[in-house]
Structures are given as C-alpha cells and as structure tokens.
C-alpha cells in the first residue's frame, strides 16, 4: 500500500535495504522528506513530492547563458550555482541570454557542475515545472512523453532540471497538460488521464 509520509515519520520498523530520502535511527527507518512510500516494497525508500534540482553526471539540462568569461560561459541550469561551460566545446556563437541544452559532465562534492555538449535552440518555447516531477513527464518507457507528443504534435526536449522545450504543434495545450501532470504527479494512472485530457481538449 502506498502512503504519504512527512519528515520524521516512520517508513518501516522492519529491516530493509534503505533507498533514497530515508535515514536510520534506533533500528527504525524514518523519512526525511515529504513524499510517498510503498509499504510492501523490498526497499525502504521515499519518492519526494517536493524538492529542487541537484545536478548529476550525464543529465541533459536546459540552461540560460548568464555570463561570458574569457574561456567559457556561466550557465544557469536552475541548480544551486551557475555552471561552467568551456568555449572549447562550443561552435555556435553564444551570448548572454542564449538558451542551450547542455549535458552535465562533472559534478564535484559541493554540487557544482561543469557542462558541455552544447546544442543551441532556435525558436520554440520553454515551460518550467518542478524538477522532481520530470520522471512523471517521461513515464515508464517514455509512455507519457509519447502520449504528449501524439496528443499535441510538438517537438519536445525535456531537461532534467525541470525545463521543457517545445516547438511546433499545440504548445498551449502541451503546457496545460504539463501543469496538470505537475499538480497530479502523485496520483496513479496518470498517463491514461492525460491521454483522455489531450483527446478531449484537442480541437
């Protein structure tokens, strides 16, 4: 059974392998964040309902060029700090305010990231949602992403930091669907619901 837990609430008193967002104290496993836990799972872990983006290696993220330096750029990827992008890997002319998709190459122990593999966006729109809801936007085997693409005919690129780029098709409908996903991310059977929503709203 799934249940909602808050920080300091017991996830399980059994001995289980600990996953994310839990900690051990006096032989009991507690949650450290507001989230959902599955009481029948083999692992004791909590899926957070709220949170923020901490970069991980190989994440594809959408960023904004915030500053140009002598040998590179500082990119705002919505993390705790600005990330460094070396000019070696950039071929397109970039300036302050350009929007790029980058890959996180290296993260240090202070959660500062270096990025590379730049791709510049020409046109399109960007929508921001909470970064921890991104797995729901993609879905199991990208089922949700497929439903969104089919329902709106948009080209979509999803950044792990919660920014979603879209071009062509019905972007207005896409953003409404994304808002719905963000709001109901903890509910089950969401892909079907969104599929129905898109079919209904589509003109």
């Amino acid at each position, binding site marked *: 059974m799934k249940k909602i837990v808050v920080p300091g609430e017991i996830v399980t008193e059994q001995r289980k392998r600990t996953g994310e967002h839990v900690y051990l104290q006096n032989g009991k496993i*507690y949650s*450290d964040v507001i989230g959902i836990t599955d009481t*029948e799972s083999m692992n004791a872990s909590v899926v957070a309902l*709220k949170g923020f983006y901490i970069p991980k290696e190989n994440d594809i993220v959408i960023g904004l060029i915030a500053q140009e330096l002598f040998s590179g750029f500082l990119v705002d990827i919505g993390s705790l700090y600005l990330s460094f992008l070396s000019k070696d890997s950039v071929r397109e002319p970039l300036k302050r305010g350009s929007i790029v998709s980058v890959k996180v190459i290296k993260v240090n122990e202070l959660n500062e990231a270096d990025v590379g593999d730049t791709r510049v966006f020409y046109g399109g729109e960007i929508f921001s949602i909470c970064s*921890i809801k991104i797995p729901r936007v993609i879905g199991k085997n990208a089922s949700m992403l497929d439903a969104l693409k089919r329902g709106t005919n948009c080209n979509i690129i999803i950044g792990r930091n919660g920014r979603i780029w879209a071009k062509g098709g019905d972007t207005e409908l896409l953003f409404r669907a994304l808002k719905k996903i963000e709001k109901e991310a903890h509910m*089950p059977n969401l892909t079907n619901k969104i599929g129905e929503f898109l079919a209904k709203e589509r003109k």
Partner: protein
Amino acid sequence: MATEKEEKKVYVNKKGLRLDGRKIDETRPIKITAGVLKNAKGSCYLEWGQNKVLVSVQGPREALPKHTANPLKALLKFTYRMAAFSVPDRKNPKPGRRDIEISKVCGEALEKSVFLEKYPNSQIEVWAQILDSNAGSRAAALTAASVALADAGIPMKDLVTSVAVGRADGKIIVDLNKDEEDAPDAVDMPIALMSNSKEIVLLQMDGLFSKKEFDEAFEVAVKSIEGIKKLQIKALKEKYESKEFEQASKLSEKALPKQPSNLLEKDLPKQKVDQKTGQKKEEKKAEVQ
C-alpha cells in the same frame, strides 16, 4: 480599594478554567496551512489564537556574502520580523534587540533538524513575518517555519514543534496569552522539541520555576507538543491526500500478490552471514598470499 479589586484577577477559577475559558492544559485554537505562497520554495501560514504568522523558505542557494559560506554544511538564516501593525502600539519596523535574539535562537533550533551537511556552501533562508501577535509568537513562528521547510522539500530529521508553558497565580498552564504573561508571579517558558527523539532544540525561561514546577511544566509541554505535531502533519498531507489517492493505493494493494512480511526478515540475516563468511574467506586468501 476598587482599583485593587480590579487588579486582582483570577487566572484559574474553581472549575479549572482560565481567563479565556480554556483548561489549564489546553492551547489556543491552531490553524496551519502549508504552501500558500507561489513564488517561495516552501511556505506556511499559521494562526495560533490571535497570533498570525507567515513563513516563507528560499533555497538552498548560493551563500551570500561569499565569506559566510561554510564548505562543510549549509547555513540556515532565520529572520523573525514583527509587522508594524502586529502589536497595539505601532512597532518600529527596524529590527530591534528582541527580533535579532529570536531570529538567532529559532535559527539554531531549526539547524538541529535539517540535514545541512547535504548542501555545503549554500544557504537556506527562512523568513518569518508576524502579522498579529498576542504572546507566544516565537513558538508560533518556529512551528510554522518547520512546516514551511518540510513543504519546501528540504531533508529534515523531524519536524520541530514548539509551545510555551508557564505559571500564573501558582498554577502551571500551557500556551499563555498576553494577560496571563502579565500576571504578577508569571513565568514564561517556550520549549521546542523534535518529538521522535525528544531532543530539546529551544528552551528559554522568563521568570523562575522551582525544580518541581519545571518538571511538571515540561511534562505538560511534551504532551501538548504531541497534539500540535499532529496538526503540522495534517497540514502537510492535506494537499496530497484525497479520496482518489486513497482508493488507488488500496487498489494497488489488492492487485499485488501478497508477500509474507516475515520472508524479508528471514532473508536478510542469511545474506549477512554469507557476506561475513565471504569476507573471512577473502582474508584467509590474503594471508596465504
């Protein structure tokens, strides 16, 4: 004579009721709402009797000014401010001695509950604005701040819950209001706890308790803190819990094949033994080499 009679108030009457009709171990009505501000990472609005507090949380983000950053853990900056209209006479909005002190003690109380070491070099800002006050506003601010932190999704050990206990007219009472705080023999003691570990994170005392009175007051405080914590948890869960969610989670329970829960416990020690023997074997090999 007439003035003397007026001055002598009965703080707890024969029925055991206080000036405002509460029992001695009863808090004022509390209303907590989480996630009220759109542009903050986390927020909370709390009404505690006449006290009204609005708390917002920002961060973790880059610690500024940069020389304050700690490369081992995050900073928690708590700001307690009273609005100019929060008290009967206008309060000068400039932060005074009292605001700075409360900011410090509340910040230190919350530091104990947050896993700060996960976000080195960063800062978490908590802004508590008192919109209306009538004694016990630091307890209200701290209670609301811990809900706001949890609402922001910041990893915490436990929720911090706070309440003030004290004495008026020789009786130990919970959650004093302004009239009771002004009693001639009044003692005011705000306490904040993390109720899982019973770890005290804030304890101040205005006035003097005897040791016996202190023990009694502490016991009463712990009891009422448990009640307040339930309200905090309810406020946090309210947004997500719905009939639909409950039905769905029950459905998933039926759909899944039931696993005997003791199966897990049996498996785990075996694994451990295997690991141990494995380790021993490796050690022996090393010796042979």
